[in-house]
């Protein structure tokens, strides 16, 4: 059994549990959040209840997922306005278990340098390995990290396309355990596709990773979109599960960053400034 979480920051956050559409009515599902066993269910009126023992937990339905909070929500869930755009396909792509801390998974999501080595032939390919300079800003007002002007070579712009392109990426980290990626849309130059990663910290060293894909795409089926995202998750899995230690070390001297890791460096500092404890190894004072 994992010890119960006593980190006030993690306890005050909204956490994702499951895709709303995946919840079968009248069958109670069990899962764990911050080391705590909880249950959720849907009644005949499609109301969703989340219980910690006998205690009813607050529920928010957003971006296709059920969210809850074990303590008192410190703030409303972050904004993802694209989700409401009428011409977007919103697909809950998968929920998979990964033996890693949530912050390690966020860092991997922010990282372009691994594309040629881990997502070979899909998101990158050797010898095109360079991570060019990009911008990282901390938006103090919205309390989120924004990485912009990110460019990386992608071997195939879209299914069927030949030749590589320089793909543009923008990353947001609006929540310690969630990140949103905006990426050039192959079918409409003026729009951006959205891929969001919502991590449910099962305990300090295990997550359920939930993905939302929100795209301008009239070609692919939902199945294609889901399978693509599952392939990407499947490729990241053995890397994440082989990271030592599993919790993210916040001591700047724990690991060696390079310029390509600018977003991760800001992320670690941001977590440190928030005083987040759960899923990280805090830096010595």
């Amino acid at each position, binding site marked *: 059994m994992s010890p119960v979480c006593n980190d006030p920051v993690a306890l005050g956050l909204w956490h994702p549990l499951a895709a709303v559409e995946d919840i079968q009515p009248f069958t109670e599902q069990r899962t764990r959040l911050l080391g705590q066993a909880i249950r959720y269910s849907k009644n005949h009126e499609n109301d969703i209840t989340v219980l910690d023992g006998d205690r009813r937990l607050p529920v928010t339905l957003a971006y296709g997922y059920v969210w809850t909070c074990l303590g008192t929500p410190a703030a409303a869930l972050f904004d993802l306005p694209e989700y409401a755009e009428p011409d977007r396909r919103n697909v809950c792509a998968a929920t998979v278990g990964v033996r890693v801390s949530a912050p390690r998974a966020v*860092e991997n999501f922010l990282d372009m340098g691994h594309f040629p080595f881990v997502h070979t032939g899909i998101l990158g390919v050797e010898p*095109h390995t360079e991570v060019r300079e990009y911008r990282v800003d901390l938006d103090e007002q919205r309390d989120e990290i924004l990485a912009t002007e990110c460019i990386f070579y992608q071997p195939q712009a879209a299914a069927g396309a030949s030749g590589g392109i320089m793909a543009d990426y923008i990353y947001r980290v609006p929540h310690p355990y969630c990140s949103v990626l905006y990426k050039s849309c192959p079918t409409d130059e003026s729009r951006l596709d959205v891929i969001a990663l919502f991590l449910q910290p099962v305990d300090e060293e295990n997550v359920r990773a939930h993905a939302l894909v929100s795209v301008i795409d009239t070609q692919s089926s939902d199945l294609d979109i889901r399978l693509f995202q599952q392939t990407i998750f499947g490729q990241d899995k053995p*890397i994440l599960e*082989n990271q*030592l230690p599993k919790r993210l*070390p916040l001591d700047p001297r724990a690991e*060696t960053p*390079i310029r390509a890791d600018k977003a991760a460096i800001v992320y670690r500092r941001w977590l440190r400034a928030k005083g987040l404890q759960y899923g990280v190894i805090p830096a010595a004072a």
Partner: protein
Amino acid sequence: MIDLEAARYLWHPIAASSDLVPRHVFHAQILGREMALWRADDDNVNAWENRCLHRGVRLSIGINDGTELLCQYHGWRYANRTAGCTYIPAHPADAPARTICNNTYPAVEHYGLIWSGDSPEGPLPLLSTVDTSFVTPLRAVTINAASQQILLPLIQGYTLQLSDTGDGSLRYGADTPDAFTIILRATDTSSDRAIPAPDIAFFLQPVDAARTTIRGILCGMDEHNTDPQALNDLLRFHNRLLCNIRDRLEKAMADEPAPTPWIPIIPTVSENQASMPAINEDGRSASLRVRVASIESLSPSVKSFRFEPLSDLPEAQLPASQPGAHIDVHLPNGLVRQYSLINGPGQTDHYAIAVKLSLPSTGGSQALHEHLREGDLLATSAPRNNFTLRRDAEHTHLVAGGIGLTPLLAMARALHHMGRPYTLHHFVSQESELFFQDELQTLSGSYHAHIGLNPSQTAVRLADILASPAEHQHLYLCGPAPMLQCARTTAADLNWQDHTVHFEYFANPEERDDSSSFDVDLARSGLTLNVPAGQSLLAVLREHGVTLPSSCEQGACGTCRVAVLQGTPDHQDVYLSDAEKARGDCLMSCVSRARSNKLTLDL
């Protein structure tokens, strides 16, 4: 409980020699600490912390390519022996700081086993009571139990099982020189036994709090004089005995609570490694001592020199280098000269350079050619790389003139090793000046020698070679100044983009003018200094305690580069490209001066 603290200072077996097959990474653990063990093609055994310094990914899932270990996550390459990082693909134009070096542990091979430990002290203790002129390792068996829980059951179970299978005349005496070693000696053996009964030594490898590997060796049995089938039967027999003991012990302990795993302390990286700044060294440092191991004539005018560390001790190891790097060689006559390393990937047990005797010599090549002897001791700097090879090109063109082949040879070796396409052109005035022919023919890139061309023929040939620049292609040039000048002009005329043309001069052929006087503001140190006529900026900085690394000190190598925040530099170097000079955002402190009255530097 075992004394964990004391155990840290002991040698422990962590693998069998035969476990480390070529191009494999063995996953080991000792006292809770995971290690990645790998044997390089030169047979050197590396025992490293099982995590990449960058993001902590296990190196035991990485790739042993024979000379380097590659991390699966971002393709970082770490060199055999030194564990120094030689390439970071995300930043192909940078030479990794040489402080990026994995945690390594000592590893020795003995008794057919690999021995290591956290911080083993002294030499490996040897067995004195058994005949170890021949040893045969048994198959290792791992038990889910602590080593102290195994010691007695192993002795009792083993001797009992052995006596059961014998003819009754066999008795074993057990001896435990320390908490991790058991020696079983047959006290009565008859020569006509069905199963041979050699003495056995068992080493208990404390893997983790609740896991122990038993590594046994049969002593004094000459494998080559033993029937292979009988030997195999013997190994199977002992394996069965060990597995029986394992199964019984685990069954008996099934209900015991699992102890807390041992959590090893993972060393933190050094302060400067945590943020990857420039190498912080002052001047022409001569931090390494090397021995001239061999001298070889490659052509009538070119000799190669192989420098080796003074001892095999880990602290005497030479820092890893990357293709394009050079070292400062401090010669016995007091001169300091720069020579490119020609080492291929993973050749980390020595530095190799090739030097052309140029007459009249200013003292460097002559000192090396005529006065240096095998066995001499020299001081050198650590490798510096201001001519880095990008390995993210779809095709790489290497163009060398004469002895300018040296850095490009190292590059060709690296590209060949990584399977990246390249073409190498070597211009020489006569055939006898070609060298490394045999090797160059066997490397995968295409190799072309151009012999005896005059300057105008050379220009035509270069125009031919450089005729079709393309995206994702890079050009590397090294050779005498007139040829380099010609190649650079030709490349520019043929629309090679400035950032794809890389070059290195032997020396600065230009006359330097140091007659001006100017002021510099040092933005970070808050100093304002005057550089008088006749003195270099570098010298003035040093006088005022501002430390800067330098190497050639004539504007050719790029080591003493400084960022310019304000003002217009008067460059005078041959290191920067025309576009870089036009940007005016950096200068070479050894030769550059100011066109404006004042420069503001990022120092």
